[in-house]
């Protein structure tokens, strides 16, 4: 197996070719493209692509930051779990800073609760094994990319009979949210930059409905400069040519059919459930619930806690931002009372959050 030249995907000369081709194809057209994935939001910010797009090409951020779309209720629930004696909450980095109704996991940590950051759910299982007197609850957030890993972890803990580990599941699935946005009368998206690693699992055809039902093109792509630009170029071309399609610019990482092994594990462990998305509200069958067979590994069933009354941050327009109805600068709180130092809404917390990315790269 020969080595792959990953460096070429950052090559400035190739990037410039793509930028020129985007300019050439876009002309004076007004084109709204939405990147669905928070990692794309970060890439676009870090590579400064907004500063170099044709004047009419607008890159909008969608509901693809799992931290941002997690509802206050779910965060409050995790916080209630963290208050139990002997309980450790383990989760991914950004999750700890997101405010719930009145507090956040990181503020709970400052108040003495045991909250730890892990890179992998496997690390949370190891934590449980190393601390048999503690109950480790992994808070799972994320989309199709992440759920197979959680499913595999749950199966593993189940098979090994690990008794002090469980998962608090706040996972969501992408297509229902995309459909909600595509059909939202307040938004006008001309093309979707589709999430590379979600598609690694789901495959490409999942998004066909965008073309079939909404006549909107989509391109699955990766996260390197050349990947992102190629995705944009392909979308601009389809818009310019009026020929919407679902295309794949990330073939090295995304098979047309996705990862069936991974999907089978998800199927085995989880079942679809209605879920509340911050900003988008309740979307049928857009969440995942641990099946009854693994109920003992489901922290929401294993621990009975009182959850505080849900309160939304007054004035936060995260919902509109996530739907692409406004850019962060359209929120009156942006950069004023809401900053990464003291976020009002979750979109300002995660470095993937649209508001944080816009603030950070000064793009509001």
């Amino acid at each position, binding site marked *: 197996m020969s080595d792959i030249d990953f460096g070429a995907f950052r090559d*400035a000369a190739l*990037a*410039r070719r793509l*930028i020129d081709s985007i300019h050439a194809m876009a002309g004076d057209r007004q084109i709204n493209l939405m990147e669905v994935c928070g990692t794309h939001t*970060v890439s676009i*910010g*870090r*590579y*400064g*692509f907004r*500063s*170099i797009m044709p004047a009419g090409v607008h890159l909008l951020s969608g509901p693809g930051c*799992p931290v941002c779309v997690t509802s206050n209720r779910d965060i409050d629930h995790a916080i209630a779990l963290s208050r139990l004696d002997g309980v450790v909450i*383990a989760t*991914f*980095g*950004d999750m*700890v*800073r997101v405010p719930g109704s009145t507090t956040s996991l990181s503020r709970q940590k400052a108040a003495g609760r045991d909250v*730890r*950051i*892990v*890179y*992998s759910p496997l*690390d*949370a299982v190891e*934590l449980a094994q190393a601390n048999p007197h503690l109950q480790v609850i992994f808070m799972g*957030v*994320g*989309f199709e*990319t*992440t759920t197979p890993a959680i499913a595999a972890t749950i199966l593993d803990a189940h098979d090994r009979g690990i008794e002090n580990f469980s998962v608090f599941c706040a996972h969501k699935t992408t297509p229902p949210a995309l459909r909600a946005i595509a059909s939202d009368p307040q938004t006008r998206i001309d093309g979707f930059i589709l999430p590379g690693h979600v598609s690694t699992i789901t495959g490409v055809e999942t998004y066909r409905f965008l073309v079939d039902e909404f006549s909107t093109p989509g391109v699955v792509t990766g996260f390197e*400069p050349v990947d992102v630009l190629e995705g944009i170029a392909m979308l601009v071309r389809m818009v310019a040519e009026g020929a919407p399609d679902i295309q794949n610019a990330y073939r090295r990482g995304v098979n047309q059919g996705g990862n069936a092994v991974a999907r089978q594990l998800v199927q085995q462990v989880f079942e679809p459930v209605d879920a509340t998305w911050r900003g988008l509200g309740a979307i049928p069958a857009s969440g995942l619930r641990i099946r009854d067979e693994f109920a003992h590994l489901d922290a929401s069933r294993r621990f009975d806690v009182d959850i505080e009354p849900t309160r939304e941050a007054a004035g936060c327009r995260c919902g509109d931002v996530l739907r692409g109805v406004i850019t962060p600068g359209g929120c009156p709180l942006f*950069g004023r009372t809401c*900053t*990464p*130092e003291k976020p009002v809404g979750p979109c300002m917390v*995660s*470095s*993937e959050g649209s508001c944080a990315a816009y*603030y*950070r*790269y*000064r*793009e509001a």
Partner: protein
Amino acid sequence: MMKRIIDELFLDEFGSPELLAGNDAGVAQLAPTGRIAMSTDSFVVTPQFFPGGNIGRLAVCGTVNDVATSGARVRYLSCGFILEEGYPMADLRAIVHTMAQTAREAGVAIITGDTKVVERGGADGVYINTAGVGEVPAGVELSGAACRPGDKVLVSGTLGDHGIAIMSQREGLAFSTAIESDAAPLNHLIYNVLDAAPHARCFRDPTRGGLASTLNEFAAASGVDIYVDEDSIPVRPEVRGACEMLGYDVLQVANEGKMVAVVPADEADAALAAMRSSRYGESAAIIGEVCEAASTRRDARPTVRVRCGWGSTRVLDMLVGEQLPRIC
């Protein structure tokens, strides 16, 4: 008893005549320029031992470097230990030995010290505070507020090594890499640059918050914009790899053995040569320049921007809070 053993350890290892005199204050000689520079930092790093060094090396280098950024000849350090009851004496010995070694390397003397032992759970092993003083040579007036449009920005070597070396040791993230902390005393490197570039504007060690924070501090203090060219910034491939894996911006990752310098354009090459010929400066590079603040912007605060190879720019902000790994 512990206290006495520790006192003896310090006397043994640090052994300056000022310390050996055993008084409450160390009395020492400075060149009578009449101007001193003073700085302090507390070091609370966990773990205390990491690839490439330990907290003792940080404690000496950090303060030596901070004092040296003023252009001062760094002379004397104080050293305050806060120890958690039950901290292994062997570890303390190793740390103190490293401090003594590093102080010798930097050419500074530890002339006064203090030890407090707190109850179990009152500290995470050991915390070290150092304060340092040096004399500022006549005519040297360095300040982060002195940057002028046209000046060049230099960095003395690869970025992010320290932060990633520490991160690789953190529970819950464990990964392994050959990256070592870069902790190093850079006072002699600064003296060399000052000799070569006598009109140098300022120096700063990009520690917590990395290059991003240092440049934003300079921009704000001087009321200028700063541009850096992403491709010119030296970064080890492994550090780049770790940053991708964890979702970090390497320009916000901490360094403990790097120096950022701003010098007039016509002294930039000489400054670069001086850095490169100094120990710890082999990979130095000119990475950017100072520009007039873009007053047309609605958001008028002085700004640091990164230029990418394909012609775009992005704003480089200060790190807010702690860098947290981003996974999903």
